[in-house]
């Protein structure tokens, strides 16, 4: 059973992470920014799975379960924040939220 070289999997994870990072930097729609964070978290989990498969150890998958838990908690809180932002500002533009009440 010849295993796939680890570099390809890590390269895929790196490409996906960079796509998510670039999207996070250039988009101003706040839901797109949340989606970009999800892509980046998924790429990080992919890197853990690749590393776990390289040495055939379950630790990589354990870390992926933790990452997926964290992503679920993060997206619920983030969507609640988006609902509040839209309720207050009537827009999804993240630049609109640059003023403080005070």
């Amino acid at each position, binding site marked *: 059973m010849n295993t796939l070289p680890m570099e390809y999997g890590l390269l895929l994870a790196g490409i996906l992470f960079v796509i998510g990072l670039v999207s996070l930097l250039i988009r101003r729609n706040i839901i797109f920014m949340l989606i970009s964070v999800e892509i980046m978290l998924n790429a990080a989990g992919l890197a853990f799975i690749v590393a776990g498969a390289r040495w055939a150890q379950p630790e990589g*998958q354990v870390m992926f379960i933790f990452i997926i838990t964290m992503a679920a908690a993060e997206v619920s809180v983030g969507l609640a924040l988006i609902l509040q932002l839209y309720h207050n500002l009537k827009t999804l533009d993240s630049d609109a939220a640059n003023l403080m009440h005070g």
Partner: protein
Amino acid sequence: MELTFFIAAAVAVLATIMVVTQYNLIHALLYLVVSFLAISVVFFTLGAPFMAALEIIIYAGAIVVLIIFVIMMLNLTQEDIQHEKEWLKPRIWIGPAVLSMILLVELVYIFTADTPDTYRSTPVEAQAVGMSLFGPYVLGVQLSGMLLMAGIVGAYHLGRQKKKVIHRFLERTEA
């Protein structure tokens, strides 16, 4: 069999690029689901079938549906019936459909191929993951439980609409 990994990886990168270049949120989410499906096939070829199932259930199932619910709740006004009609044109869903078909053909090939090396590396089954998760990493499981509890409380607190408790008399004098 290395080809399955590379095709799934290409589909994942292509779908993710399509996600970040879309202007319509629903179209982006359509490609996002395809991206998660492709990464799930990558997990399968890497010998993590349990994680492939979790990826589909949690990411493509729960998280994307949650985002779609919020988009529906926001009730964006400029997207009216005409937009709804535009969404059903074939050129919108033909891209995700083709990419999903590639993944489906790949999955059928993986299951029907009689070669013993279905996985690209030694598979780690769910049992080993569970033994490790509740053995040395049980503290992490408890911390995850606390994190999820904090997420529930935070989402409830933030998502609650502020209810104005104003007496009828005061409301009339204000207006």
